């Protein structure tokens, strides 16, 4: 890996890391969603700065190109982030459904002046 590429990769990773921390600080990104992004940023920095580790891992995985390995890891992280978001969307969908149902029932009961029997 050339030093130029190394510098760029470390720079991108570090910027991502700092930007995410800043987003959390400004409360634009919740902590629960930030950890995977932070982990991704950190891995970019670690793997590009510590070339020997990248080399070791690429040999371990059958001697593939170190740069290809970086892409491979990048893709795995993106997949994990997408999966994480899908799970969160599923939860949100259920919560929105539940809320709309409760609101609709409450409204209809108020309209007909039904007795608010507590469950």
């Amino acid at each position, binding site marked *: 890996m050339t030093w130029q590429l190394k510098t760029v990769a470390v720079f991108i990773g570090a910027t991502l890391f700092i930007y995410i921390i800043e987003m959390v600080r400004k409360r634009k990104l919740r902590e629960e969603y930030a950890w995977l992004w932070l982990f991704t940023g950190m891995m970019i920095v670690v793997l590009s700065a510590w070339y020997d580790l990248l080399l070791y891992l690429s040999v371990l995985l059958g001697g593939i190109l170190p740069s290809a390995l970086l892409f491979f890891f990048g893709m795995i992280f993106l997949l994990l982030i997408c999966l994480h978001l899908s799970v969160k969307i599923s939860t949100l969908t259920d919560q929105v459904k539940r809320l709309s*149902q409760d609101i*609709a029932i409450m409204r*209809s009961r108020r309209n007909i002046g039904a007795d608010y029997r507590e469950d």
Partner: protein
Amino acid sequence: MKREDDFVVLMPAYNEADRIATTIAGIREYCSAEIVVISDGSTDSTAEKARETGAIVIELPFNLGYGAALQTGYQYALKQGYDFAIQMDADGQHDPAFIPVLMKEVQTGRADVAIGSRFLGEGVYHLSLTRNAGVLFFRNLASLLTRQTVTDPTSGFQALSRKAMEFCASEAYPTDFPDADVLIMLHKRGIRFTEVPVRMHQNTKKKTMHSGLVPIYYLFKMMLSILVTLLRTHEHRRQS
């Protein structure tokens, strides 16, 4: 306010303004039960038309889909203390003459869910070739997995006991096309269901829920739902 009858008629409706009043009038010929219309984010005057007939109207703020609208009805019925409920379509496809027949099955305790089947001899009902293949496939699969004969797993004309409603109002109920998978879930939970012959009217005007790519998604969703239902052994044990 709860009426004399110990059951309620639940009717999910999405943009059925021109048919809802006729459907409600039809139901009133056969029973005096409270009718609850769940308007699933309708953009026309479905809610107003239903309210004019004296029915209770629950208006969902936006379209949540058939299953979720139905589930809202169960939640309402349970909150109001009803022991039984009839669910039917708002487009007049289901013949209200069969409400007492379905109700009798659950009220006498013979079953917790009585499903109105259009394939048990009452009238002739034609399906398109692809839908027929789908019904046939899920009919056999549901029969196999529940160890009892299922002829109409996609029927939306049903009578339910409180026990069945409690399941349908819970988070475990699949609100995204609840059909054959629900039967398997009921079976796993020890909730008994039976089929009753009913007449359904062929509805040519009906904008079917199953069009475009939806059948492919339906097939995929149903298979996945059935698979995970079978895998969820712990959940059923805990609940029973």
